[in-house]
């Protein structure tokens, strides 16, 4: 036994070293300037260092990993652009990124670290509402403004007056899809399959069900699954029995891909309907052609002919390859709103940056024009996309 002990210690050391590396902060936006990352400023705000530090918490690993990667790229792009344009208040910007492994408890911990250790000016993140809720609590308590790029659950910004978002909220998405299903698709009877573990999914379901009934349709049955399940046949079998014209699945892409495949397999050939949680390249890989004919609501479409969007897509493609998804666009917008807030703030305290962000009006984002209301939510329109040939195609824009 003794012989192998060192071997095992070495193996475990290797693994823990590799894990450690993942959670190390990655300063972004400074590399292009060839400038080393600044050590975390110590003492009270405003920080004395000549770098303005933004914090980001994202799901870089775990079940929502593609969301995190897109977020990080969007933020990185915005910061690089701001630095290339001379920085903010004569200083360069940098981002400290922490991974939350797609878990709320990790997200909360990372936020605490950003506010207590790194003393960041603004926190950006996360995509999943459950993670953002955990973060918002900490950010609000510390008095550090937080902007979530894509958490659509209403309760996130209700956590306090330091919490903002640049995406529309769940009730709106549920409303949009209910309206589209009734008026454009002329559906009368649908079933709902919700994710019981996610506040996002339940939020969309509630408004969808309410609006769809108000508009004269009927929700036949509501089945539920738990995030991370891989076998949905029992729920789908129960749904099939009610003979719906469509199934509303307000879940995340990794579950939806499997749901689509298994629905087809059980002979359920009706279209699926969903929300922005579907938006990921991975969706099409997981679903194959099973999602053809499905519709989902989203924040933006890369097929939008707007000049601003075109430039964003070209820059993103040059930097990372591939087309940016909505999360990347929203993350880019969120970072730019944050940077504009820092620029406009009187001093660099949390309170003054908060006030500056709260006054955001007609801000030209790539995922729509952003005007924040008194509840710190933007008022903007949604797009409906139709899945076909392994991608999402622009169908129409639905205004609030």
């Amino acid at each position, binding site marked *: *036994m003794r012989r192998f002990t060192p071997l095992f210690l070495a193996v475990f050391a290797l693994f823990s070293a590799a894990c450690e590396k993942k959670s190390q902060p990655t300063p972004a936006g400074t590399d292009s300037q060839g400038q080393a990352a600044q050590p975390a400023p110590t003492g009270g705000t405003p920080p004395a260092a000549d770098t303005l530090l933004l914090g980001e918490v994202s799901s870089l*690993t775990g079940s929502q990993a593609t969301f995190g990667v897109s977020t990080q790229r969007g933020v990185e792009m915005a910061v690089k652009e701001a630095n290339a344009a001379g920085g903010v208040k004569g200083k360069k910007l940098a981002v400290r990124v922490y991974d939350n492994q797609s878990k709320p408890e990790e997200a909360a911990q990372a936020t605490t670290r950003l506010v207590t250790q790194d003393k960041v000016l603004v926190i950006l993140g996360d995509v999943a509402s459950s993670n953002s809720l955990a973060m918002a609590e900490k950010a609000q308590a510390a008095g550090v403004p937080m902007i979530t790029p894509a958490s659509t659950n209403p309760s996130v910004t209700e956590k306090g007056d330091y919490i903002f978002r640049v995406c529309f909220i769940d009730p709106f998405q549920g409303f949009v899809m209910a309206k589209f299903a009734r008026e454009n698709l002329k559906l009368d009877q649908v079933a709902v399959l919700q994710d019981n573990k996610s506040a996002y999914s339940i939020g969309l379901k509630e408004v969808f069900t309410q609006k769809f009934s108000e508009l004269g349709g009927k929700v036949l049955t509501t089945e*539920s699954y*738990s995030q991370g399940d891989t076998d949905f046949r*029992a729920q789908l*079998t129960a749904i099939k029995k009610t003979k719906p014209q469509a199934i509303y699945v307000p879940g995340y892409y990794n579950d939806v891909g*499997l749901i689509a495949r298994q629905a087809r397999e059980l002979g359920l050939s009706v279209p699926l309907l969903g929300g922005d949680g579907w938006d990921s390249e991975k969706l099409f890989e997981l679903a194959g052609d099973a999602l053809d004919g499905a519709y989902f609501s989203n924040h933006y479409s890369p097929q939008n002919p707007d000049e601003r969007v075109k430039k964003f897509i070209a820059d993103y493609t040059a930097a990372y390859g591939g087309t940016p998804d909505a999360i990347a666009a929203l993350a880019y917008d969120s970072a730019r709103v944050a940077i504009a807030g820092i620029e406009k703030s009187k001093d660099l305290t949390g309170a003054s940056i908060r006030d500056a962000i709260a006054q955001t009006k007609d801000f030209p984002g790539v995922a729509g024009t952003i005007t924040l209301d008194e509840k710190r939510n933007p008022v903007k329109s949604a797009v409906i996309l139709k899945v076909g040939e392994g991608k999402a195609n622009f169908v129409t824009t639905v205004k609030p």
Partner: protein
Amino acid sequence: MSQLIQHLINGIAAGTIYALVALGYTMVYGVLKLINFAHGDVMMVGVYMGYATALMLGRQARGSVGGVLLIFLVAMVGCALLGFLIERFAYRPLREKPRLTALITAIGISFTLSYGFQLDIGFLPGSAPRAFPQIIKPAQWFTLGDPEFPDVVLWNWQVISLLVAVALMAGLQFLVYRTRFGRAMRAVSFDHRVAALMGIPTDRIISVTFMIGSALAAGAGLLYAIKDTSVSPLMGLYVGLKAFVAAVIGGIGNVPGAMVGGLLLGLVEEFVVGYAASTWRDAVAFGFLILVLLVRPGGLFGRVAAEKV
């Protein structure tokens, strides 16, 4: 009625996989009295081996009978090797130590594999779930009712899984009770020190037991991946736990017991989700385990043996 039949089919298909994974648990427990918590993660590694092989084969070749056999062969042989390594370097050095030590090591191996596979370096796949390629082209073998909206669908892979599982179980039962190797296994299980005195190569028997158990895990994992069309580094933890429950329900150490336990668990879960709610699934599954253990502490097929003093 038709819904009931469909739930039955789905439940048996899910239970078959649990049963196959449970066979590995039961075998290792039978011989070593060790609950190999890394079993599910060995399964996960096997699925990734199959996944890599399938990608290398390309779309045409992986759908053919030869392609499927090759995928299974690579995964099962690869896992047998992995099982050998784990037993040789993690469990064998602890064989004379208290049983708890080996159990903790097993949990350690399990976490090392499942979290190690989430790293995104070199050949490791990273944490995002991936779609498992269709190595068996799904075909409806039987439908009932309106062809547009069939009430009951029976798929080719469901039948294939069940046949494979039954064949493997029968093979295992034959191996344990009808061969010299099986007799040696049972002897080692009874008392490995005395077995060694009788000239049985204990270490080799245990190694081979581990290799067979791991190969079974790989096979089961591939069937699971075909069923659920996805593969992720954490799949082993979940399936492994369920298979462990199945093995305990059936009477751990008992081969037909593992099979029955797996099928029962699959059916119970399917009916709970189909007629109640998916949130109840795990609660009812573990409640069922407690119920079985209360009524028959040794599991359905197990015998309660007095501990040797």
